[in-house]
């Protein structure tokens, strides 16, 4: 039999007792703290899981807070959009009344003008809404109010006053502008004519006086400014800050460089002297500009310099193939004397009552008595005399109209064309009778008569034109066009911003259609709308080419709502929808009957009503898109809340002790300990020494 040593027994009992006491201690800690262990080693098998779940929980709770914060920002935006829609709808109703008002116009005009002026400034203050210190409608520029006070027509220095002055100054080519022309001029001024000041003191163009974020290459993100001025043609500048200068190969733009807002490529940077050497961005424009690779124009000191990496510049080419037109070719067959009708290429070019001569017969004048557009036959008789054809005409004999708007004399600003459908306002034409590089812009198309203006400088025809004069038409981009031809799309990606040198409006590249074509939408708009103003054809006047400058994509306001999920919610005040509404209201608020005819005002009112309808629909679309995002937020919030509940349950199962089992174990261990105590005390008496 194994012997039992006295010290062995007591050591053993001691260690067993300590063991039970340690268990008891652990259980007491568990029951009092509710946790399985005070250290991660105590839950070793699940410690990593516990830590990871805990960090997931923290991050998810963060996202939930973000969503709540985003909701408090989006709700006011919705509210503002709704109010703008309401204002637009009310004004539209009133404009419709004014556009067909039988009352004395002064009465309706004054009321509507007052209402529109109020509406302008109401919308301006709505767009300056802020939550906390954050302006909601300035894009990512959240610390300055994005919209100015528009003032009123009576206040000449206010924006509304400047718009009203357009009528007095009459910047239009016609002496008495029509309502349409006035309306167009107002929109053009608001979109392109206003200037604003950046935080660095530079002046940059801004549609509607918007001071929020316009992004590259609009030029709101200036990094440094020139220390000294530089003359036109200069190839280097010195800047006032040496920090974060551009690197060789990047592009820079200057804050004030009309008319093309040209970009220059950096060729060298001297860090020590803060000198940047550059060359005019390599594009076809440079070649056309001649030998100079330097500045297009002089820049003053303190001009802001914007690094537009990866911006680059390319020229815009005409919209589609150029087409040729010829005035009135002759008869299509030979006709003998005595006939009273001939066939022509297009009978629609003629009208009954119009008089003409045949090129081979200067003596007789004929008048059109009838025409058949399906057979392209015109019926005529001499005037006076009412006789048939007096002399035979060979095939191809030219016909010279004598009546109507046509005038072929030098200095004339009107001419008749064979296919008027081929011409749009903004197209640029050249004539075979003129010296090279003489161009005219089409300023109006009225039936087969077009109004022209020589570019640059204005004025009519240089040389008289004949019926044989060939016309080359360079097509413009009409407002709404969304595909633009450019010199090259290398380096351009969808999402980049693009700005054309004839306008201050920023667009987004929606897609690359072909290596020389891009699809554009106004910044902040979705698919569907194209150019906001008509863009003249780029070529071919040297120095007058339209260039397209590309910049990095502009991110709207956004919020992280889940891992890798960012929700974009910001609506900049210069979005197309709001501009359309504001533009219409400006027209109503500034049109003055003293310089506008009653008919003209009604045209303006009709245009405004139409734009207000379009604009308020677009605003509603924007609002409903935002509504979808609100729903996304709600759904994400619900999902993440459920997720946190799951996480908490899991974490609790990892970290927290099962109270019932811990308490029962505690009781059990206590009993065990008590039993051990009894055992020890009974062992004390169990010694032979007690019995001797």
């Amino acid at each position, binding site marked *: 039999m194994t012997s039992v040593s006295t010290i062995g027994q007591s050591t053993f009992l001691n260690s067993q007792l300590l063991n039970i006491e340690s268990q008891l201690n652990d259980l007491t800690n568990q029951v009092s703290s509710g946790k399985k262990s005070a250290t991660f080693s105590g839950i070793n098998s699940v410690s990593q899981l516990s830590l990871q779940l805990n960090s997931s929980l923290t991050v998810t709770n963060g996202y939930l807070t973000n969503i709540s914060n985003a909701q408090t920002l989006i709700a006011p935006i919705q509210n503002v959009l709704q109010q703008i829609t309401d204002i637009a709808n009310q004004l539209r109703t009133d404009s419709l009344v004014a556009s067909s008002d039988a009352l004395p116009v002064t009465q309706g005009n004054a009321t509507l003008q007052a209402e529109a002026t109020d509406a302008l400034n109401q919308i301006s203050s709505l767009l300056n809404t802020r939550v906390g210190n954050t302006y909601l409608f300035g894009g990512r*520029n959240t610390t300055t109010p994005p919209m100015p006070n528009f003032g009123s027509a009576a206040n000449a220095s206010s924006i509304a006053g400047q718009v009203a002055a357009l009528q007095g100054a009459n910047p239009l080519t016609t002496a008495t502008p029509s309502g349409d022309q006035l309306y167009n001029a107002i929109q053009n001024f608001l979109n392109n004519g206003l200037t604003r000041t950046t935080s660095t003191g530079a002046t940059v163009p801004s549609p509607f006086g918007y001071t929020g974020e316009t992004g590259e290459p609009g030029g709101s993100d200036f990094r440094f400014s020139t220390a000294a001025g530089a003359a036109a043609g200069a190839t280097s500048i010195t800047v006032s800050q040496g920090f974060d200068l551009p690197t060789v190969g990047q592009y820079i733009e200057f804050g004030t460089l009309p008319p093309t807002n040209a970009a220059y490529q950096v060729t060298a940077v001297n860090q020590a002297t803060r000198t940047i050497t550059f060359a005019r961005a390599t594009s076809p424009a440079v070649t056309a500009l001649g030998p100079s690779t330097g500045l297009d124009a002089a820049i003053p000191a303190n001009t802001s310099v914007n690094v537009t990496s990866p911006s680059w510049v390319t020229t815009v080419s005409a919209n589609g193939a150029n087409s040729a037109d010829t005035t009135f070719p002759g008869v299509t067959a030979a006709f003998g004397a005595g006939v009273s009708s001939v066939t022509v290429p297009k009978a629609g070019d003629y009208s009954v009552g119009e008089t003409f001569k045949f090129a081979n017969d200067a003596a007789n004048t004929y008048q059109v008595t009838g025409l058949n557009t399906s057979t392209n036959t015109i019926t005529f008789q001499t005037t006076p005399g009412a006789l048939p054809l007096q002399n035979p005409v060979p095939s191809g004999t030219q016909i010279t109209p004598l009546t109507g708007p046509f005038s072929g004399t030098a200095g004339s600003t009107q001419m008749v064309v064979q296919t008027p459908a081929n011409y749009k306002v903004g197209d640029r034409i050249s004539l075979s009778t003129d010296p090279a590089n003489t161009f005219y812009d089409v300023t109006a198309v009225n039936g087969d008569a077009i109004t022209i203006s020589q570019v640059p400088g204005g004025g009519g025809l240089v040389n008289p034109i004949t019926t044989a004069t060939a016309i080359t038409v360079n097509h413009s981009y009409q407002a709404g066009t969304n595909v633009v031809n450019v010199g090259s799309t290398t380096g351009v990606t969808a999402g980049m911003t693009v700005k054309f040198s004839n306008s201050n409006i920023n667009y987004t590249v929606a897609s690359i259609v072909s290596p020389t074509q891009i699809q554009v939408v106004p910044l902040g708009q979705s698919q569907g709308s194209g150019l906001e103003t008509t863009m003249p054809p780029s070529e071919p006047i040297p120095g007058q080419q339209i260039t397209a400058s590309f910049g990095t994509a502009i991110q709207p306001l956004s919020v992280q709502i889940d891992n890798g999920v960012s929700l974009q919610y910001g609506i900049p005040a210069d979005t197309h929808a709001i501009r359309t509404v504001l533009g219409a209201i400006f027209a109503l608020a500034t049109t003055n009957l003293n310089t506008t005819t009653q008919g003209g005002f009604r045209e303006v009112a009709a245009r405004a009503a139409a734009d207000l309808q379009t604009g308020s629909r677009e605003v509603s679309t924007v609002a409903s898109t935002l509504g979808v995002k609100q729903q996304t937020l709600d759904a994400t919030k619900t999902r993440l809340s459920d997720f946190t509940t799951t996480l908490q349950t899991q974490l609790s199962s990892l970290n927290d002790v099962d109270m019932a089992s811990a308490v029962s174990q505690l009781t059990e261990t206590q009993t065990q300990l008590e039993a051990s105590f009894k055992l020890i005390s009974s062992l004390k008496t169990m010694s032979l020494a007690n019995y001797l």
Partner: protein
Amino acid sequence: MTTATSLNGALLIAASGLQANQVGLDVVSRNVANAQVTGYTSKTAPLESIVTGDANAGVRTLAITRNVTEALLRQLQTSNSVNQQMSTQSAFLQSFQNNFGQPGNSTNLAAQIGNLQNALSALTVSPDDPTAQTQVISTAQNVTQQFNLVTQNLGQVRQQADAAISTSVTNVNTALNQIFTLNNQITALQARGESTADLQDQRDNQVNAVAKEMGITTAVQGNGAMYVYTGNGTTLLDSTFAANSSPVTFTPTPVVGPNAAYYPPPSSTFGGLSGISVGGVDITGAIQGGNIAGDLNVRDNILPATQSQLDELAAQLATKFNTNDLQLFQRGNQILPSADTVTNVGGVATGGNSITVQSITNLSVGMSLHFGSQPNTTYLITGINTGTNTLSFVQQGTTTGLTAGVAQDEKVTFGPAIPQITTGAAGGALGATTLTLADAIGAQTGMRIQFLGHSAIYTITNVAAGPPQQVTIQPDGTGVGLQAPVAAGEGIRILPPVIGLAGYANNITVNTNVINNPWRVRDGTRVQTPSTLTGNNTLPTNLVTMFNALQTFTNNTKLATSATLVNFGSSAIAYQANVTATTKATLDSATTIYNSLNRQFLDESAVNVDTQLSNMITIQSSYAASARTITAIKQMMDELEQAVR
């Protein structure tokens, strides 16, 4: 038929019985008195019959012996070593566990990094809100404080382990001297044939004291002396042992910094933490079991692993922020240059070893650099041309340049210099390729050295047998041999065999430039003035994305190399938790084995009072019987006398 014996003879026999019983009672009383003394073994006084001629002449007591199974005793000592090792290791690790807080709360490092991520996430909603910006900075400060605190505590625990080794070594030396003294006493007694049992008990106690500190083996010699060896056979005590000597040596380090490491031979001459030596031979690696093994494991393996994990995490955290244009963290008060870009037109091809950057402010030779396209390859700046802003560099650990080409405008981030150790060298002329080192620095082929005051980096390509050590060097540049003469005794920097980020976690702080300009958490540290785009959340969004993305970590941290920043932190904590729990489990089983062996040993060898008491009764009755025999003999003698009268 036995030879008749006289009454006198019987009396003598009885007297011998009385004597033997007295000795027996003496042993019993000693056993009972020492029953509760640790290390005391039960003694027995064996009896032997005295035989004269062919007749029994009584009984006598032999030398007192102890009842010990030596094999069991040795096993117990080994088990004691293992138990002690695990016990000390577990105690240190348990105390270190407190640095990571309680499961479920958010005070631990991983949770703090998660809070930073959250603060950045909140900044995406309101990038213009100064409170949200400040929140990012304060959570970043919490992260750096947690890094600093944990690594400081880690250093303290390592220092405590280092100090504990010193105490243990003193204990070992003391015990060895005791054993030496006892050996001498035992051999003397044994030579005289006297009992050595009590001295053996004392000696075993001292052997246990040594075994508690480090695993040993012992061998008892024929003369009774005991020799002591380490687990791998290095002699601690034999016939050559000198009295009052300290055969085991160790030098404690007063402050154990994050870079402090023990370098095994031959690199131990680099300096660093002390190893354990016997007679000048480093036996650190051979120590198995005991407090010392536990302390060494804590000091040199377990905590440095966590240190490297924390350093790697701190460095990656700082680097990832840097590559996102926000230099949120810096190392100590060192002003790190912000990220720059490669300005070489067209970039630099594979193998290239110089780049031009925009600014060389704050750059110095020795600093590390990373390219945006090769985030996991470290290069070291070997030269700076201040006129052209050109940096020359080599890939860390090699003499070669770029492992892959870099593009123009590619981002370059700069890191701290690699910590280096200084030693001395003999001189060398320009172009020399062979140098004689002034002292045995443990040079090894492949080691990279740099002479103080010179920017060139050389690689040791050959080491001739020394001392003195003759090394062949090869410059990292294009030239052959020394690119500048070096003087005799000139200092050499040597890359130690640890990764270059050591101590990052200890020094990481939040960039004061960011603290003073909170808007930088939105706009980054590359711009000079706050952006007008106050609602621009691009940077915070990118940073949140960075936190959600898997990052690549170096593969020498014992953790997975691919993890998010937060999860790497979790893994580091879980790694420690696992080591601690495993140690605890090993300790529990080692303790069970030890207790069981101890019980077995004690039951076999220690005193059972009841047995002793029953022995006493036996001795008493035997004594009574002997006494009665004497009484009977006396009566017989008296009667004989009467009869004669």
